[in-house]
């Protein structure tokens, strides 16, 4: 049975049901009760999709959200998630949980890694996988191996790109290991690339595109090289839901599969110019 054969009635009932607050989730034990709505919200024909507004894939996610909602015969309503947490995410999971209980049916703009979220949440199948890339202002650098071990490399602290860079470095002989410097912001990392503190930076391709949009004058000065560890440099994007929302999750999975098959995801990526760097519709 295809997704289009599902009825609006069934979806409406399911969306109502998923508003209930779970009583046993561990995360809920850490949240003051007055933050969680105990009533069911009448959502009408809307699919309420939370997004992190500063996500560098926000336009892609909203386009995908629109397409998913259309396949479920619903109208999307995008709701901003709170941002600005500590590096280790203090309060982030709790706030995310509150938002999903009170206001959202699912959250887009989310990184999807197996078994990475607290047990209160579940994830859809990946929608797309974007890549980490190596960026330098030295034309002689066409790969990681062109960089002498005496140089330093930059990565965004707490990012997947920094993780694969660190893991790669640790697997090298001592005499071939670069110094890895984790940066708090891409702007800071770019500054240290330009002043020579680091020889190259490992950065998420959508982040790099956003960075270039703010620094158009650097487009000719900077160039992108493949990562030696490119096979593991992709990061999946998808949606996260409360764990009990299995019905909506299966509906969204079916919609994403449908959109992969008919080329919708590829078209969105192309329309947004996000196919300039390695990207895979449907994820890896």
């Amino acid at each position, binding site marked *: 049975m295809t997704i289009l054969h599902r009825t609006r009635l069934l979806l409406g009932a399911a969306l109502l049901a998923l508003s209930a607050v779970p009583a046993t989730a561990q995360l809920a034990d850490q949240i003051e009760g007055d933050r969680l709505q105990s009533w069911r919200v009448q959502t009408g024909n809307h699919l309420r999709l939370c997004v992190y507004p500063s996500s560098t894939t926000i336009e892609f996610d909203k386009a995908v959200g629109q397409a998913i909602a259309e396949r479920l015969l619903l109208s999307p309503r995008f709701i901003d998630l709170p941002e600005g947490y500590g590096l280790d995410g203090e309060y*982030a999971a709790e706030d995310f949980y509150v938002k999903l209980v009170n206001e959202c049916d699912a959250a887009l703009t989310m990184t999807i890694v197996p078994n990475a979220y607290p047990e209160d949440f579940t994830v859809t199948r990946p929608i797309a996988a974007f890549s980490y890339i190596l960026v330098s202002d030295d034309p002689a650098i066409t790969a990681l191996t062109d960089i002498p071990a005496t140089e330093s490399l930059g990565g965004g602290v707490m990012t997947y790109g920094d993780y694969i860079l660190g893991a790669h470095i640790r697997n090298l002989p001592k005499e071939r290991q670069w110094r890895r410097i984790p940066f708090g912001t891409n702007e800071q990392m770019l500054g240290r690339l330009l002043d020579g503190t680091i020889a190259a930076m490992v950065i998420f391709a959508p982040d790099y595109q956003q960075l270039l949009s703010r620094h158009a004058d650097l487009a000719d000065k900077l160039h992108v090289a493949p990562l030696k560890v490119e096979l593991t440099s992709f990061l999946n994007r998808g949606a996260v839901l409360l764990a009990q929302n299995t019905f909506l999750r299966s509906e969204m999975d079916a919609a994403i599969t449908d959109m992969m098959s008919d080329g919708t995801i590829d078209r969105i990526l192309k329309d947004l110019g996000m196919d300039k760097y390695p990207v895979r519709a449907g994820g890896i």
Partner: protein
Amino acid sequence: MKIRIMLSVAALVAATGGVFAQEPARTYTPVTAEMVLKPNPGDWLQWRRTVDNHGYSPLDQINRDNVSDLELAWGWAVAETGQHEIVPIIHDGIMFLGTNMNTVEALDAVTGDRLWVYKHQRPTFEGAYHENQARRQKNTVALWDDKVILTTADSKLIALEALTGKVVWETQVNEWEKGYSFTAGPLIADGKIFTFTSGCSIVGTAGACWVTAHDANTGEELWRFNTLDSNVPEWDASWNGVPVENRWGASVWATGSYDPELDMIFFGTAMPVPYAEVTRGTGDGRVAPTNSTIALKADTGEMVWWYQHQPRDNWDMDSPFERMIITTEVDGQPRKLIVSTPGKNGVTFGLDAATGEYVWHEETVYNNQFGGIDEATGLVKDTLPDVRPTEIGQRVTFCPAIAGGRLWQATAYSEKTGLFYLPASNLCQTSEPQPFELVSTGQAMGLFKSFGNPLAPNAEGVGSLHALKVGTGDHAYDVQQGPRFTSSVLATAGGLLVVGDADRYVHFKNDETGETIWKTRLHAPIGGSPVTYEVDGVQYIAIAAGSSNQTHPAQTPGLQVPAQGANAVFVFRLRSND
């Protein structure tokens, strides 16, 4: 010299917006430098009552013999929801409540009638971290002169008129836009106000976290000290090449202590950020001065000494908690010590207050992280290797858990028993450094995942209370129970320890044995810091109860936690005082 200040009924009404037409004029005795160092027995002027952070009251009207005759005098639902970590402050018959969102209420300490309320106006925070900080304000007020001194979530230091709540002056201490905030209140001593900064795990705070000193009468800044970068070569070398601009942590979450003889202040620093060394890129560096005690000259902010309690922390073991100053006998000689359970790992230390020299340490809760002491140097060895992940995604079970061990709930010292009292919990935690960012926004924002909090090996329950001898650290006794002790401890000259738990019980314990003499049950988990005070010859004990996220129902069989915290303060007195 005491100055009596008279205030008109009209001014009271104007401040509160309420109607107090028959309210008699109230007087208020300004708090002096002498009173700060030696408060009137019936007063509770600062977080732990005295600037040595003892959490001890000399009042003894309520004692072991009559504590079962306590009755409720009055209760008050405080103005804000959120984590209930409040500390009532009392002087001249007025109770000041600095609660979440930096709302301050003044109540008549005898009747519970509200005198005024101050509602803080703050900007819309740019970061959600800040919003959460505002919902867990701790001991945010202290008293000086005729003013209530308040620290705020948007990094302000504010002086309010004690009798009206009107703002007298305010100063912006740190740039809240970068992520700085205050969750703990000020220390007032030596004519100065000292502030202790939170939020240094936010991207914008890279390379700097602050302790500041201000003129107590004007708020003018006198000096500031950076806990991440103060030109200390040993600190720089310990980050293994990670530049200052890429260092986070060493927040100063708790209020410091002051010693007038040494003219020094003492405080603790929190964990390094990111938590895991494999993520933060510091390799085998000890990342100083995270998880350290720091001693500064009060007049200048110049560092006198520092001592690190958990080098190479990987699991947010956070060592910012209160430092007590206690003169006791060590090896037959009187010695002034800093006695503290500085961090979540529960290891308790005695350090020489003047020099920072190691004197003793003692473990309390089960611990698989603490590396022990290098006997040659007196320094703490690196965190044990079994709990230091070498790869992202490496799952580790560590004890105590991130929620402690101990947490913000403050310790106490009885000047009668010579014992130091620590409320703690017997929890472990399984977790792993995450291999991904929550979302890509161009600035770091992680997500922490836990795989559960098992009880520590051989633990009888989550809750534990430890009594140590301050000269040696030897255990006098240890108490365990199912529910966690969720409040600070109060010690009194009446031979009592007062401490509350997650199961809503307030325990009045024999301070020499830990035995509960009498207990009473309130509407919600007991929180904040119990305090005691005296007005017109009557001793009162104030207890906070409300929201707590340290209740651990999954690890406490049978524990039921109310869905709504309904934060409140309850005040008890002896029935015979009716």
